[in-house]
């Protein structure tokens, strides 16, 4: 763990340095850790003093954290909301205190969009769509039925809901593509493995696995191997995230396609924070630059992959 010394002592608001209060959702996955690290590193590099708080997946705590930032008088507040709704009150408080707010990674559904300056992050629905479209292309023109099993993220979480709906919309185009089983794997490797084991036992024919993140996909690969099948060949695997482990598996041919969901939005965030602080206008929606990876692309990208 790296903790930067420059932020010690809570010099909230004093000096020339911009003070950014950042409230993270939690530390529920490796993706999230990478996201946190990116923000810390970028803040350091940009000379911004970072106040970091972790909400542990609890909205009430995140609201409290944001309020505490207001009390401390930070210059800018940024946060990845735990859920989409329920931020109006605290955002209003921030606005009253003249502290601009930037959202990262996840959106909020406030009707009053003036409550925050910008939202930087991925489009989960688009990610689902990308995954579905790749699959469509794979089975273009073929006529046999394709059985898909889906490993969902944490029940009720925004990425799980959006990646599911985006995917479903995309594969609607081909009636042969059918999701035969869909269960939550809670974004975890171990659960991905357990659930995949059960899928394998209860479904004779599985052609495709769509996992909402790499970790579940990696767990599922273990299950598939244990069942004597070849991941990537006997069962096509699509995942989202493109963390290093996932990319390695992709390059090794055990995953077929990964939609990137980059956690590295620290630099973008810091730029935006600086602009906001300087009173410049920023875009309301900044979509992180994300791509998709096939096996070949993965082999190329792997050596330079940061996380």
């Amino acid at each position, binding site marked *: 763990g790296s903790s930067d010394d420059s932020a010690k002592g809570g010099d909230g608001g004093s000096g020339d340095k911009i003070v950014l209060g950042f409230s993270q959702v939690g530390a529920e996955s490796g993706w999230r850790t990478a996201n946190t690290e990116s923000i810390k590193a970028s803040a350091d590099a940009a000379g911004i003093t970072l106040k970091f708080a972790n909400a542990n997946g609890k909205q009430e705590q995140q609201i409290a954290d944001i309020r505490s930032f207001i009390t401390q008088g930070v210059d800018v507040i940024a946060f990845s909301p735990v859920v989409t709704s329920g931020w109006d009150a605290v955002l209003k408080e921030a606005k009253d205190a003249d502290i601009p707010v930037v959202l990262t990674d996840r959106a909020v559904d406030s009707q009053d969009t003036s409550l925050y300056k910008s939202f930087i992050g991925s489009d989960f629905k688009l990610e689902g769509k990308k995954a579905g479209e790749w699959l469509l292309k794979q089975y273009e023109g073929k006529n046999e039925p394709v059985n898909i099993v889906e490993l*969902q993220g944490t029940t009720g979480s925004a990425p799980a809901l959006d990646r599911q709906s985006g995917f479903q919309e995309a594969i609607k185009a081909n009636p042969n593509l059918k999701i035969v089983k869909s269960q*939550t794997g*809670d974004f975890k490797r171990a659960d991905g493995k357990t659930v995949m084991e059960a899928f394998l036992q209860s479904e004779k024919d599985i052609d495709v696995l769509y996992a909402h993140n790499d970790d579940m996909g990696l767990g599922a690969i273990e299950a598939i191997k244990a069942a*004597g099948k070849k991941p990537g060949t006997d069962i096509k695997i699509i995942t989202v995230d493109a963390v290093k482990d996932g990319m390695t598996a992709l390059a090794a041919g055990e995953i077929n396609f990964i939609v990137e969901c980059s956690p590295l939005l620290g630099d973008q965030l810091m730029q935006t924070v600086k602009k906001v602080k300087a009173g410049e206008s920023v875009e309301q929606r900044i979509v992180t630059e994300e791509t998709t990876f096939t096996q070949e692309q993965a082999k190329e990208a792997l050596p330079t992959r940061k996380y």
Partner: protein
Amino acid sequence: MSIVKKRLFWPSLILVVMLGINVFTSNQFLTIQDGHLFGTLIDILRGSAPLVLVSVGMTLVIATGGIDLSVGAVMAISGAVACLLIQDLGNQNSVASVLLIIGIAIAVALVLGLWNGTLVAVVGIQPIIATLILMVAGRGLAQLVTDGQIINVQSGPYSTLASGFFLSLPVAFLIAVAAVVLTILLTRRTALGLLLESVGGSPTASRLAGISARRITVMVYVVAGGFAGLAGLIYSADIKSADSISAGNLIELDAILAVVIGGTALIGGRFSIIGTVLGAVIIQTLRITVVALDIPDKANLLFKAVVVVALCLSQSPEFRAKVFGRFKRRPAVEKVAA
């Protein structure tokens, strides 16, 4: 003993029903593949190994009237330590080194258990809060060890722990069985069980009977820590990586549930290891059954709730008396009259 047996009838029935469901939904409930057993049943047995281990430790703790919330964190730490060390091995497939590392990881877990036990028995902190401290801080420690990342290992011997087979049975299952048998032997073949139950039944009276309640309490937490550590190793060997964030997350709840299903009261005293094992297997089977029945995600919890409600009501003699009492009342009286 017969009371425990009676109490276990209904949970066993529920387990059998769920297994029955799996026989139908599964296309291979139990087959032989590559020279070893394979299928849903084996998945269940293998998958329940970590929970069984944790629950058995928990049973001992609960028998003394305590509780251990830190098991999940201990799992995370032991997995993290093991993977960290294995990662640095020159040859990850060296059996001796892996065994040594496993030993180290378990030793760490035992020390953590010792910490819990000391807080409870020597400092005198209420168990729930004493172990809460490690529950919170322990996961932080695990993350320090792994630097918040998932550490991958490619060690054959290590993953054997979870997915290997021995005598055509999964190694993880065999480890769990060994642990259970060892615990049963230790508690029932020695006087340990009696002393445990006595401490749980009344610490004051036990002390006055010359039992070193303190030492026994500490020991029980140490054992629970060790079992949790072992469970953590199996968990991490299963996914060939240390996931310090989600390893053992909320497993304490499942473990306590397993203990209670198994007929051990949370206030301490009489305990049943076999009952706990049954409880743990039920919980794992429930997980698989949810998938097998293709219960939609949003209804998962409701389904679980129904099963737990059924379980806890079936466990209650009062409930059975009130519901089935109509038929049973008469014979019961006649029996004693005779």
